[in-house]
């Protein structure tokens, strides 16, 4: 790995990162493509350079390291599959919103802004509850004990 290759990979990673942090899906895809290139530079750079890795293929000098090449080759093909899938996403986004912008998750924004409403934690009043005797509301002290104990059972959290 020469300084030149390291710098090339670093440059590709920097530009790719910058693009991936955007909101436009097509820029993100281009960013991912550049990141893939950077990774391939790292991989190929990690192996020894030389002539093509073909046994008895003629030529002078040592063979290039074949393993990083094999890894990079599959990486190239896989990144094509990824790109196709992401482009399909962009296409679908365009169909639905006329744009390929990745929006913030509306649900998450709601949670961040106000949290779960407190009512969601309690079980609501339940008409079918046999313990829910209206006479309990007369306010005498013996009644309140019972009412409170029933409440303890009735107020457990109900998830959203």
């Amino acid at each position, binding site marked *: *790995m*020469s*300084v*030149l290759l*390291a710098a*090339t990979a670093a*440059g590709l990673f920097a*530009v790719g990162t910058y693009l*991936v*942090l955007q*909101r*436009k899906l*097509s*820029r993100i895809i*281009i960013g991912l*493509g*550049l990141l893939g*290139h950077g990774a391939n530079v*790292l991989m*190929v750079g*990690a192996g020894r350079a*030389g002539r*093509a*890795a*073909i*046994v*008895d293929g003629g030529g002078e000098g040592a*063979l290039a*390291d074949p*393993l*990083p*090449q094999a890894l990079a080759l*599959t990486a*190239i093909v896989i990144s*094509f*599959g990824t*790109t*196709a899938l992401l482009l*399909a996403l*962009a*296409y*679908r986004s365009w169909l639905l919103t006329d744009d390929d912008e990745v929006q*913030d998750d509306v*649900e*998450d924004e709601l*949670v*961040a802004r106000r949290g779960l409403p407190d009512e969601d934690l309690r079980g609501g009043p339940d008409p079918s*509850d*046999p*313990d829910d*005797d209206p006479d309990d509301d007369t306010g005498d*002290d013996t009644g309140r004990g019972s009412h409170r*104990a029933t409440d*303890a*059972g*009735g*107020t*457990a*959290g*109900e998830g959203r």
Partner: protein
Amino acid sequence: MTALLAAHLVVGLGLVAWGRQATRVAVPLAAAVPAATVAWLAVRAGDPLAGRPVTEEVAWVPRLGVDMALRLDGFAVLFAGLVSGMGVLVVAYAGGYLARGGAGQGRLLGLLVLFAGSMLGLVLADDLVVLFGFWELTSVTSFLLIGIEHQSVTARAAALQALLVTTAGGLALLAGVVLLGQAAGGTFRLSEVLADPPGGTATTVGLVLVAVGAFTKSAQVPFHAWLPGAMVAPTPVSAYLHSATMVKAGVYVIGRFAPAFATVWIWRPLVVGVGLATMVVGGLRALRQTDLKLLLAFGTISQLGFMVVLFGLGTADTVVDAGELVLAHALFKAALFMVVGALDHQLGTRDLRHVPRPGRGWAPLTVVTVVSSASMAGVPLLFGFVAKEDAFAGLEAGRFAEAGAVLAAVVVASVLTAAYSLRFAWGALGYGADRSSVGEAPPPPGPGLVVPAVSLATLTVVLGVAPALAEDVVGGVGRALSGAVAPPHLAPWHGLGLPLVLSAVVLAAGVGLFLARSPVDRVLALGHRVPSGGEVYLLALRRLNVLADRVTAVAQSGSLPVYTGVILTTAAVLPTAAFLLGDGWQGWPAVVGPAGQVVVCVAVLVFGAAAGAVHRRFSAALLLGAAGYAMAGLFVVRGGADLALTQVAIETLTTVVFVLVLRRLPDRFESRSSPGGRAVRLAVAATVGTAVFVLALAAGGQRAGTPVSADMVARAVPDGGGRNVVNVILVDFRGIDTMGEVTVLAAAAIGSVALARAGRRPRRTGSDDPTGPSPAEAAGGPRLRRLVVVDVAVRVVFSAVVVGSIYLLFAGHNQPGGGFVGGIVAGAAVALLYVAGGIDDVRRVSRARPWTVLGGGLLLSALTVVVPLALGGAPLEAARWEADLWLLGHVKATSALAFDAGVYLLVVGLVLMVFESFGDDPRRLAHADADRAVHDSTAAPSAHLPEVEEVPGR
């Protein structure tokens, strides 16, 4: 024993599943299983009670030392008998309680049987992990039974509370069990741990955790609030789980551990303290209830506290007394629950202010009420009295510190018990109601509601008059827990002494407390100021939710750039920091390396940076392609012939696909980002770039050993049968990897087609019929003239390129090429066809659909992996054939070629599918756009829902 447990499981599941069809036999069937257990116990209990446990073992996870070990000793006999005997009675009672053939009946009975099995397993388990498993099963069945009326919010909330509390305790129990097992030298066998108790800090912590688990299950302060809540369950459930059996699981565990560990410094203060507090709190709360069932629930809490105290002390006397109390409590408390259930069933209320005096036909239950309440209060000649007096005697004789204080506290709590027992009888017999607000006496209950309660009350009386009948069982408890040899002497009359005096005091004070109920109520009303357990639970749950909201708001902002930025920054900063803090720098490597690299690297960087900088989509895509071609140049310089070929073909295809999609999107990116956001992005990008640079240099300097690929080069020809080492690695040495990767490709292809096609608008009827005029004509647009020159040229070139791609496939094993490269070259040929004639020409290429080609390729590759397995070899094991063929000369072939052919087909299928996704005629799309405009302006919102377009016929 295993067979009995399995019978519970099978019958329980069967009833849950088919209970609705089998209503007539459901009750007998459900009762048969616990009845069989009772019979088995009657036959086999002799040995365990005499101190000779019956054991049974099935290997489960031998490597972890966890086995399905079951052990029936005297202590287990008491609980197993309780579980099964009560099971029979409760199932019979449930048959009378529930409407015959009611929808939930089979489910309820089945769950009761499942619970009985879980509880039986819990008391029989001799392996701590198995015990924990059954413990959790009882929690789950209890959850389902409390929430059996799942339409009710209250029932669901109560079930959830019980589940949260008991399973949280279950987790504590598990942690404690693991700690104890480790401290005991890695054995989880309960009997071994207890026979040779470990010591040390780990044991202490483990014991505390086990005790906490037991407290949650047995509703001890401060975890008791779930038990009153659980009273929303039908009465058979309350009688069985929440008074007689399940809540005693915690008591059982404490009883098991106490004799061996009572001398650990924290055990007695913790367990006895919590038990005493629970006794008092439960008694006080019970005195304030008007709901008879809640009164019993708080009474149960108080009694459970009593058992925890007695078992927790762990002396030879007190564990025997605790065994008596367990038995006595099950007899009187379950009977009282059944009385409340009968009232509720016949009357529709169980509030003591609305219960009328018992009418005609209620005499048996009146007697049951009086007898059982009196037993609970400790009236002589009933079994409750025997148990309580023996407990007093045991505490009096106790050889442990603060025995006097414990005895005093128990006496105070017993006064409360006597008072609420009286209050219960007073309320249940209709003396607590306001005369004017009470209606007619209810109709008498059916035999199903009466007989089980009467049998329990009869036992209370019989054992109260002749307690010697219980000596064997109770003595068995002593033998099992403390090794006591002499059987206890149980008698209705112990003679004059302190216990008798205390009993008299308790009864008198209890009556006094009851009679003075008006002033007492005013004092107890002050208790409102203390938050109840239920309020504490609710508060804790709410705080937890608020905390979760805050964490979520920060951690889950919903913004993709934020997520990506955090991930990338972390991935860059952490390893770099670790590296810089360490001592890994090996010095600078060569600056340039092979000379040709300079030009290509500069080109890659320039094109890459330009692709990031431009604001037009097309330009960016083309610049990305240019960077890719420059990468191919780099590969050539480094000696990667296959790589360069693949890169060029892929880059061509990628560019074509980009163009296909981008023609729909606006030409320019509209940049709306703030300067601040831009600065952050630049900073993250610079960080990542720097990290990659540093780590690349560092990793480059670390290479010391021989590359693994040296071996691969040496073995390529003899083992792989090919001279192109890269290809041999792909299809042979690391073939399974390749198999996984092509599977990913297939998934990506299917995904992109699904996404693209699902989003299409429905077409107008007739306008796009593929058998009719061409889409362009139907759309009314001008038909583009096809240039003959281009058509002919493309056809010639297409054939040539396809032949070339097949050559690459076959040659790949020995020369640059292979399945990936060949497939992509063929794909490039398809792209050429598309340029000349659009999607229709592409569809005309092959009779097979794109997905058939894709799937066929995947299948072929997979077969190559699997077939050698069928022939007794390793997956992907290569076979080789050589033959002299006419015309072709000497031909060598390996089975890896078939694998590579699969890859080839798959890549071709992928390309075809990409065109199928995005390659629609733009004129047709323009037409679809027009449709869209019409829909948008006039149609109902439902028209916006994407619909799947019918696959065009061919």
